[in-house]
């Protein structure tokens, strides 16, 4: 009997050993995913300028409790790195985590040794990274390419020459940074756009390779350059403007569920957050100016939310905030765009998953959200406190007309 027991135990261990060995060969690349710190809130801006509106946006970021900023280029438009970074220090603090990609209005004063008596932006960025203990993959930022991790958020920054070296250099760099990366949340950051990746008058200035490389690796794509805010639905092919209809089922021919997006290998969403303080623009394409926006060629109903001077008046400035690892779920994030006037104009959920997720009731994202009824001209709005009700979700506004903004909640 003891012999039988010994034989059975031996068989059990042998079976276990071979099963685990098979798993090792079948799933060779399984790595434990590393999420961000819980409730890690990041602000995304671009195109700031050096005026009062840029300061107001920084104060908004501070008041919303953001723990880091990603600024997608076009800093102060003055080529004064000392003044620009000095303002950051003054409003947010000298050790506040502020990460940048270079814009076309920063370029000539970017590289270390730029020769600008007011300083070089890259040097200030490097010094700040060192102060906060963040080590970039390469200490030389002059090539406008670098990556870093902060509080579990993987960030990849690329430069301005997308049209010339996007395919040969930027996309392979993105691929090399992300293909073996085990962070749950990844951000690709650059300044410029492709024409169909914005709703103004910008043309193709980055090439598609960088967009597709980030999408293939399941990274969120953060851009600016066009002085507006817009966000896409989940895309499974960015160049062809293909919306993931599993996540956004068609309703009357229009992909629905715009405020619940997926991020996973092969799918992601793109946003332009270019209302950091300088010269806000209107919506030139993908009309009309209210949801579901345009569905024709070049638009294809990809846009989930658009906020320009056509929707927000003459001072629609603000920032996009994304909070990662929310509600105890490391694979869940929530986002909202808030203006300096206190308007929350976009609210959405992000799930790190390739499995379609239907929109579900959410807790209020920002207890201090204030909805403002814009008056014509937008200079003296009235204020009405309308917090997002608990266990509800903000639905896209069907039609925004001057004088009143209606927010529909679904319970």
């Amino acid at each position, binding site marked *: 009997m003891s012999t039988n027991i010994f034989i059975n135990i031996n068989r059990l261990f042998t079976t276990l050993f071979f099963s685990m060995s098979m798993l090792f060969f079948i799933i060779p690349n399984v790595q434990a995913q590393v999420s961000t710190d819980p409730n890690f809130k990041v602000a995304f801006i671009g195109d700031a300028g050096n*005026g009062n509106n840029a300061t107001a946006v920084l104060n908004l970021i501070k008041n919303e409790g953001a723990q880091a900023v990603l600024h997608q280029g076009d800093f102060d438009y*003055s080529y004064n790195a000392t003044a620009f970074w000095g303002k950051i220090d003054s409003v947010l603090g000298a050790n506040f985590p502020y990460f940048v990609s270079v814009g076309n*209005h920063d370029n000539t004063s970017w590289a270390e040794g730029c020769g600008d008596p007011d300083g070089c932006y890259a040097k200030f960025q490097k010094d700040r990274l060192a102060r906060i203990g963040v080590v970039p993959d390469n200490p030389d930022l002059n090539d406008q390419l670098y990556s870093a991790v902060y509080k579990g958020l993987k960030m990849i920054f690329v430069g301005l020459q997308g049209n010339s070296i996007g395919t040969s250099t930027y996309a392979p760099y993105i691929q090399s940074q992300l293909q073996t990366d085990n962070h749950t949340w990844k951000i690709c950051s650059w300044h410029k756009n492709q024409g169909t990746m914005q709703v103004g008058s910008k043309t193709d200035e980055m090439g598609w390779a960088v967009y597709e490389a980030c999408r293939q690796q399941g990274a969120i794509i953060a851009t600016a350059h066009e002085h507006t805010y817009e966000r896409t639905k989940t895309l499974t092919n960015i160049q062809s403007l293909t919306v993931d209809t599993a996540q956004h089922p068609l309703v009357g021919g229009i992909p629905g569920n715009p405020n619940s997006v997926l991020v996973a290998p092969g799918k992601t969403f793109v946003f332009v957050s270019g209302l950091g303080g300088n010269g806000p623009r209107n919506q030139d394409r993908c*009309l009309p100016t209210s949801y579901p926006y345009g569905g*024709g060629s070049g638009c294809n109903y990809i846009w989930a939310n658009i906020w320009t*001077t056509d929707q927000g008046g003459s001072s629609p400035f603000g920032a996009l905030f994304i909070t990662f690892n929310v509600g105890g779920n490391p694979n869940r994030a929530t986002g909202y765009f808030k203006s300096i006037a206190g308007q929350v104009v976009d609210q959405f959920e992000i799930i790190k998953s390739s499995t379609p997720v239907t929109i579900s009731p959410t807790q209020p994202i920002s207890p201090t959200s204030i909805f403002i009824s814009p008056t014509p001209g937008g200079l003296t709005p009235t204020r009405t406190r309308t917090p997002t009700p608990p266990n509800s979700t903000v639905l896209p506004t069907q039609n925004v007309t001057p004088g009143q903004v209606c927010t529909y909640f679904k319970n």
Partner: protein
Amino acid sequence: MIKRGHVLLIILVLIFLAIIAVQKNKQQEPGKVSAQGRLVDGFPELPVLPNSTVEKSYKKEDGVRIGYEADYLINTPPREAMIWYKLEFQKLGWLIYNEQIEGIESEFAFTAKKGDQIVNVFAESEDGKTEISLEIPLQQKL
């Protein structure tokens, strides 16, 4: 004498042209009328920098609101152009704000407001020339 084959060919050509026309209309932005080299009909009377040429313009409507945009080209440096526009708008009683001119090096902007009307003015260098944009966001039709 027209042969049956010729008639068929003509019909096919007409169908082809109709398809192209439908596709062109589909690609137009709804509610938007554009013009190249001139101002669209109904473009409001606003200051125009002398010697500038209209590159393109458009008008867009969403029922109760109307908006416009016009892009001009000129050789005047963008900062000078913006200072001219600011002074001209002020002479006509417009309030100037959101100003990004002083201390700015490359892309200039301001907002002008008069009553319920708003105009956003931009200037930046573009391919060796200065491009000036006058944007009138969607506003109530007067």
